[in-house]
C-alpha cells in the first residue's frame, strides 16, 4: 500500500513535471532561418519556426495563413528588422491578433536595433530603388555584430521567460565561447580574400564583405530590389572585362541567370553562396554556415 502511494505520487509528480516543461516551452517565430538557428543555440528547448528558408527572398514574403497561425501562438518573434520585413510583418501582426509580439517592449525582437547598421540613409526616395533608411538589414554575416545580437536576444528570452534564466545564461555562454573560438579561425581563412573584388547581387553580403575586406565593385541589380536588366548587365560586362574581378556572387535565394550570362561572357566564376542556414547542404547552423561561405570563397580566389 505504501509502495503504491509512493508510485502514485511519483507518477503524478512526473506528469506534473512534464506539463510544466511543456508549458514553459518557449514558442519562437523567426522571420529568417539565421535567427531560427540563433534561437536554437540560445534557447535549446524552444519550439522554433522559421517563416522563410534560405531559398526565399525575405523582402518578398506572402503574409500567408500558415504564418498568421504560427504568429498567433508565438511568445517571441525574432526578425532582422531595419524594415527588411516591412512588406509582410505588419500584416502578420495585424492578422494574428497576438499582443504579446506586437512591440519590442514585449516579445518582438529586431536584431538591427541592437547593432550599428551600415549604409543608413538620411533621406530615402523610391527612385533609389528598394533601400532601407534604417541601414542594411542583412547583418547576420558579421561575426562581431552577431555576438552582440546573441547577447541581446538572450536577454529578450530571459525577459519573456524568466523561469529559465539560468538556461539562457548558460546557452549564451556556450554559444559565445564557441563563436569567439571560431572568429580567429575564420579570420585566418579570410586572410587571402582581403582586397579581392567581386560583382554581387544586391547588398546581401555587405557585412561579410566589409568584415573580410572584399570590395563589391558592381551590383547585378541596376537599383536595389530591381531585378537585373539586359542593358545593366551589358554595362557590367565592360566593368568585368577589366580583369580585376575575382568572381560574381549571388545568394541562394537570388536568380542566377543574370550572373551566369555575365560570367560566361566575362569568363568569371559564378558563386552561389548560402545566405543563411539551409542555403546549402553544409550550412546546418550558424557556425557551419560561416565555414561553408569561407571555404566556397577560398575555392575561387
Amino acid at each position: 500500500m505504501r509502495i503504491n502511494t509512493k508510485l502514485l505520487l511519483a507518477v503524478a509528480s512526473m506528469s506534473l513535471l512534464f506539463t510544466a516543461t511543456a508549458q514553459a516551452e518557449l514558442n519562437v517565430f523567426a522571420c529568417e532561418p539565421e535567427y531560427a538557428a540563433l534561437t536554437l543555440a540560445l534557447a535549446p528547448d524552444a519550439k522554433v519556426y522559421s517563416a522563410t528558408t534560405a531559398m526565399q527572398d525575405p523582402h518578398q514574403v506572402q503574409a500567408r495563413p500558415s504564418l498568421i497561425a504560427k504568429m498567433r501562438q508565438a511568445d517571441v518573434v525574432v526578425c532582422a528588422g531595419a524594415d527588411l520585413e516591412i512588406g509582410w510583418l505588419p500584416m502578420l501582426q495585424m492578422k494574428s491578433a497576438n499582443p504579446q509580439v506586437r512591440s519590442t517592449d514585449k516579445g518582438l525582437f529586431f536584431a538591427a536595433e541592437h547593432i550599428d547598421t551600415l549604409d543608413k540613409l538620411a533621406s530615402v526616395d523610391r527612385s533609389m530603388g528598394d533601400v532601407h533608411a534604417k541601414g542594411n538589414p542583412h547583418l547576420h554575416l558579421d561575426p562581431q555584430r552577431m555576438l552582440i545580437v546573441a547577447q541581446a536576444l538572450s536577454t529578450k528570452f530571459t525577459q519573456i521567460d524568466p523561469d529559465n534564466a539560468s538556461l539562457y545564461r548558460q546557452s549564451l555562454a556556450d554559444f559565445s565561447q564557441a563563436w569567439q573560438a571560431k572568429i580567429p579561425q575564420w579570420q585566418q581563412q579570410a586572410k587571402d580574400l582581403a582586397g579581392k573584388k567581386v560583382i554581387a547581387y544586391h547588398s546581401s553580403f555587405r557585412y561579410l564583405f566589409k568584415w573580410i575586406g572584399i570590395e563589391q565593385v558592381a551590383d547585378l541589380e541596376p537599383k536595389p530590389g530591381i531585378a537585373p536588366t539586359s542593358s545593366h548587365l551589358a554595362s557590367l560586362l565592360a566593368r568585368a572585362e577589366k580583369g580585376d574581378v575575382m568572381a560574381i556572387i549571388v545568394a541562394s535565394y537570388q536568380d542566377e541567370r543574370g550572373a551566369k550570362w555575365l560570367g560566361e561572357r566575362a569568363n568569371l566564376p559564378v558563386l552561389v553562396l548560402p545566405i543563411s542556414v539551409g542555403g546549402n547542404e553544409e550550412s546546418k547552423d550558424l557556425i557551419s554556415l560561416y565555414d561553408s561561405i569561407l571555404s566556397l570563397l577560398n575555392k575561387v580566389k
Partner: protein
Amino acid sequence: MSALNTRVSILALACAVSSYSVMAEDSSLTNPNVSAVLDGYYQTGDRPLAERAEGFGLGETELALSANIDEMFYGKVTAIIESHDGETELNLEEAFIQTLAMPYGLSVRAGRFLSDIGYLNNQHLHTDSFSDRPAAYRAFLGGHYFDDGIRLNYVAPTDLYWTLGVEAFKGESLRAADAHGERDFDNLGVYSALTKMGGDIGIESSWQLGLSYLRNQNGQAYAEDEHNEEEEGHDEEHAGHSHSASYTGKNTYIADVVYKWAPNGNYKYQNLTVSGEYFRVTDIFAMEPGHIVEADHEDISSDDYHQGWYVSSVYQFSPRWSAGIRYGQVDTYEVHGDHLHPQQLKESEVSLAWHSSHFSTVRLQYTHQTGTNFDGFEDDNILTLQYVMSLGAHGAHQY
C-alpha cells in the same frame, strides 16, 4: 504640491519618451504611413456595372493615412477621389479603428471598413490583377463592400489557420431598389458571419478556404405595380455613379478558395495565384407587405436566386511581367413590374501587366463579354490600358 507636479510631469515625460521608442520602428503619430494610389486608363467600351467608362478616365485615386494610435488601437483613413461625368467626388472608403491588445486572439474593428466576406472584398482595388472586379462583385456587392459598422474577429491558436468573424453594418449600399422612396428600411441592415482557414502544402504552396454568410434585412426587392416607374428607377441607378449593389437579396452565401505557388516558395521571381469564388443570393424578391397576390402572378417563385462565380489565374513569370486569365459569370433576375426576367452576363478576360518596380503597374486587358437581357450588353470586345501606381508608404499586402 509642486513636488507632486514635478513627479507627474517626469512620469509624463518618461511615458512620452518610452512610447516614442516603442513606436519609432513603425509608424507613429509623428510619422504615420501616408500613401497615395494613382490609377488612370483608356478603354474601348463599357463593362456593365463597372466603375470605368469608355474612353480616358481615372480609377479610384486613393489617399491613405494609417498609424498605431497608441498601444491599444490602430487607425486608418482612406479617402477616395473619383471623377465621373465631369464631377469630382470625395468618398471615405475607410475610417476605422482596430484593437491591438485584446487577449485570446480577439480583435474588434469599428468605423467604416471593408467587410471581410469573400476573398477579394477586404483587398484594395489597386492590388487586383484585373482592371475591374469580377461581375459577381459588381452585381452583388457594388464592386467592393465597405460600410459603417463593427466586426469581432477571432483567430484560433492552431497550426492550421482558422479565423471566425461576425460583422454588423448599416447596410445602405446593399439596400434593394426602392423606386418610390417610401420603403421603411431597417437602419441596421446587414449582418455577416465568416470563417477562413488555410495552411501550407510543403514549402512551395499555400491555400485558403473561406465561407461567408451575409444577412441583408433590406435586400429583398418588392414587386411593383407600375411597370414604368420601376424602369425609371433602374435607369437612374445605372446612369448615376453609385457604389450600391444592383442585385440584392435577403441571404448571400459566398465560398472562396485561393491557392498560391512559387518555386521554392520564393515569390520574388515567379509565382502563381489561382482563386475562385461562388456567390448565391437568395430570397431576392417579395410581394410588398399588404399587397394582394393575384392569381396570374405565378412566375414569381420564392426559389429564384441570383448566382455568380469566377475563376482567375495570375502568373508572374518574371519580376517585371505577369499575366492573368479570368472567367466569370452572373445569372441574375431583373424585376419587371411584378415578375422576374432572367439575365446572364459572361466575361472572359486576359491581362498582361508590366511592373517597373513593386510599386508601379501598367496593364493591358482584353475582355470578351456576352450578355443575355443584360441592360443591352450582348457581345462586346473591350480593351483597357491602365496604370496603377502607389507612392509614399506602402502597406503590407494581404494574402
